[in-house]
């Protein structure tokens, strides 16, 4: 269906009025977020207050950091169901390193990150070398990590190191989670857009066999991708624990679904090869702002789940529509 010429005549007619259809199709999540915010500003005076916006920032930090890691995995054509459990395990391990093993706080913090990284490497190796589908490998890890969290903690919260609590604190008026969120977004975006690794993720997710035959080390890339997801999960877990000054055994339960939802709302394709950090960030904001708004409007948390579900369906519906317009 392609026109096979590069004559200048094809370039002139593109100078036309603003194509709102294409804009909407490509920025559906952003437009949705803006509409949502405007509606909430009108509906409740409590939405547009400094304190509420900071709350949103803190709440979005955990979801978004998890979802950044998930973005790598989904772009590379996989799925990671274990990020919530790995977040909890990493935080718990960090607490254990500090309280029970008596390590210095900074080592406990790094130890927590290493645990997340290791869990990710195991996920990746099981997928790339063990030939387990990522859905299955990470489903297993979800159970193992959550189980280990309970084993380590004996079902009770563990106090976190001051260095970890610092992640949940403030720098002046700015909450640390928001600072970490921004840094994580910059790093994740840099990895995805600028590095060989990031560009390879798109190739592997788009067509793993073509990537392999072009000489890309597909298996190593997959392991690295899951390792990054594990590392970002650990960071999210530490953020969460830092806010509460303790690692909770049931922390971040079900967060993997929020992370997947954020990535998908952000325009990534579950079949791989597509996705952006900025999109994921907007997707995470959409989820958190809806929850926040519904709370302010005193909507029951039961109904909130219904609304979130509809939003996900709507976002993916828009994604399908976009793909259709692009391919014709």
């Amino acid at each position, binding site marked *: 269906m392609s026109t096979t010429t*590069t004559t200048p005549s094809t370039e002139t007619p593109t100078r036309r009025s603003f194509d709102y259809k294409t804009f909407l199709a490509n920025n559906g999540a952003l437009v949705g977020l803006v509409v949502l915010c405007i509606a909430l500003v009108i509906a409740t005076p409590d939405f547009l207050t400094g304190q509420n916006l900071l709350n949103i920032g803190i709440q979005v930090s955990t979801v978004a950091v998890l979802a950044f890691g998930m973005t790598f995995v989904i772009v590379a054509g996989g799925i990671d169901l274990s990020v919530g459990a790995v977040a909890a395990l990493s935080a718990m391990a960090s607490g254990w390193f500090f309280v029970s093993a008596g390590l210095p706080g900074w080592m406990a913090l790094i130890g927590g990150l290493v645990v997340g990284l290791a869990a990710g490497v195991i996920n990746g190796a099981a997928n790339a070398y063990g030939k387990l589908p990522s859905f299955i490998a990470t489903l297993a890890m979800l159970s193992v990590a959550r189980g280990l969290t309970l084993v380590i903690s004996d079902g009770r919260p563990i106090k976190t190191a001051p260095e970890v609590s610092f992640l949940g604190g403030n720098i002046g008026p700015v909450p640390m989670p928001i600072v970490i969120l921004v840094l994580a977004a910059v790093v994740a975006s840099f990895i995805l857009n600028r590095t060989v690794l990031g*560009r390879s993720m798109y190739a592997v997710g*788009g*067509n793993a066999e073509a990537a392999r*035959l072009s000489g*890309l080390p597909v298996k190593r890339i997959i392991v690295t991708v899951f390792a990054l997801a594990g590392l970002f999960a650990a960071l999210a877990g530490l953020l969460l624990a830092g806010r509460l000054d303790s690692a909770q055994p049931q922390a971040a339960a079900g967060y993997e679904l929020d992370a997947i939802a954020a990535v998908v709302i952000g325009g990534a394709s579950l079949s791989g090869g597509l996705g952006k950090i900025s999109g994921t960030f907007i997707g995470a904001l959409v989820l958190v702002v809806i929850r926040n708004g519904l709370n302010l409007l005193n909507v029951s948390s039961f109904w909130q789940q219904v609304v979130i579900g509809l939003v996900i369906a709507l976002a993916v519906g828009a994604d399908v529509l976009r793909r259709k317009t692009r391919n*014709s």
Partner: protein
Amino acid sequence: MTVNPLITLRNVTKTFGQVTVIQDVTVSVYPGQVQVLLGENGAGKSTLIKMVAGVYQPDGGQILVDGTVTTLPTTKAAEEHGIATIHQELNLVATMSVAENVMLGRMPTKFGMVDRKELRRQARAALALIGLEIDVDTPVGRLGIARQQLVEIAKALSINARVLILDEPTAALTRHETQALFAVMADLRRRGVGMLFISHHLDEIAEVGDTVTVIRDGHFIAEVPASTPEDELVKLMVGRSIEDQFPRRADETPAVTEVLAVSNLTSAGRFDDISFTVRAGEVLGIAGLVGAGRTELIRAIAGADKYDTGSVAVRGTKLPKGDIQAAIRAGIGHVPEDRKGQGLVLDASVNDNLGYATLASSAKLGLADFTGQRTRAEAVAAKLRIRMHTIDQPIRSLSGGNQQKAVFGRWIIAASTVLLLDEPTRGVDVGAKVEIYELMNSITAAGGAIVMVSSELPEILGMSDRILVMRDGRLAGELSAADATQDTVMTLAARDVAAQR
């Protein structure tokens, strides 16, 4: 001839967004006739077919079935009019059996359950129509691509089609299988079935067609009898004459430097004890039937698959088994058989696709070299005349020939000197084919070596300096370009034809 056409597209037009893909084209299919649709990739053939099949609706003009103006809003509506399509892309469920695939959507039932016995019987009857003898319980995914296509053809035939649309059905078939298909087509023709046939093999047109409709850039160009000479057809199709379909220019003084040496290469069940060498500046053709082990051999040399024993060496250096990266570093470039499945990341840009092989080697400190890559990609795209709007458009939107040139371009950027080509012009139109052949010439002129696997005998004969023939995973013989003819190659390639499995 006062016979009414079964179906006519009258002055149809189709636009997508601002691009007019088909403008004012008229084409008819008569009972008992094979109407050939000829045009380069991107000329609009697929769009025309999709209008007949009920996938697209024309924006202007009319569709007439049996002389009455009709609309075909859905594929189902087209089927009800007796129009069946065999698409270029196979439409089979790989995990289901041959019988289930043939009868998909109209499984015979007994008391609400699938009647397996009847299912097998009807499926066998359908397969018998094209003389295909296979176990109907085999999962379709286990068959080779050629056999899968035949199953698809059997499936379409079994719907009692009056109008059969054949969109490049022979692209993946061997000569023998093509002949079997043509025999079926001749039979259908006697039964009054009208056919719309698309093929890039010009030699097939005179053999099987009645009339030829030529379209170029979405416009109707001419309707000529199928007996029109090939040169004339090419001229109508591309709008200029192509002097030589196979412009091979070999060095008069062949170099003696051995570039690629394959010794006693064996992979159980795939190929056995293969040895050959390729010199600088040489094109080595590998002929054989589908399933003779040619693709498997090429993949093993490229490092894509492991092998059991033997060795592969490039310029005297032995390559490790199953190591694609080592092969690429040694100068090997592999253009795989399945362009869409193995060659390209379809949703990625032309630029990205051109750069995958050099993504890591051109990087600094793990950072991708964006500006350098873009410069290299633009240079190679211009050199290979890849026709596109911008280098950032998804490669999916390019025509087959331009996509294939991009796969070549990847290895040109990587400065590969040993190219392994597996069906390099499959699904590529005549104009782009010649460009690919010229590209092969320039690679060998620069001292590169080429190994080319192809099922198109004219291509093997026209472009190779030396020809190896494989049969059942073994080397059946070697022919020089001077000695090789279709007959000598086929005699070596064909076993007992009935045992072809």
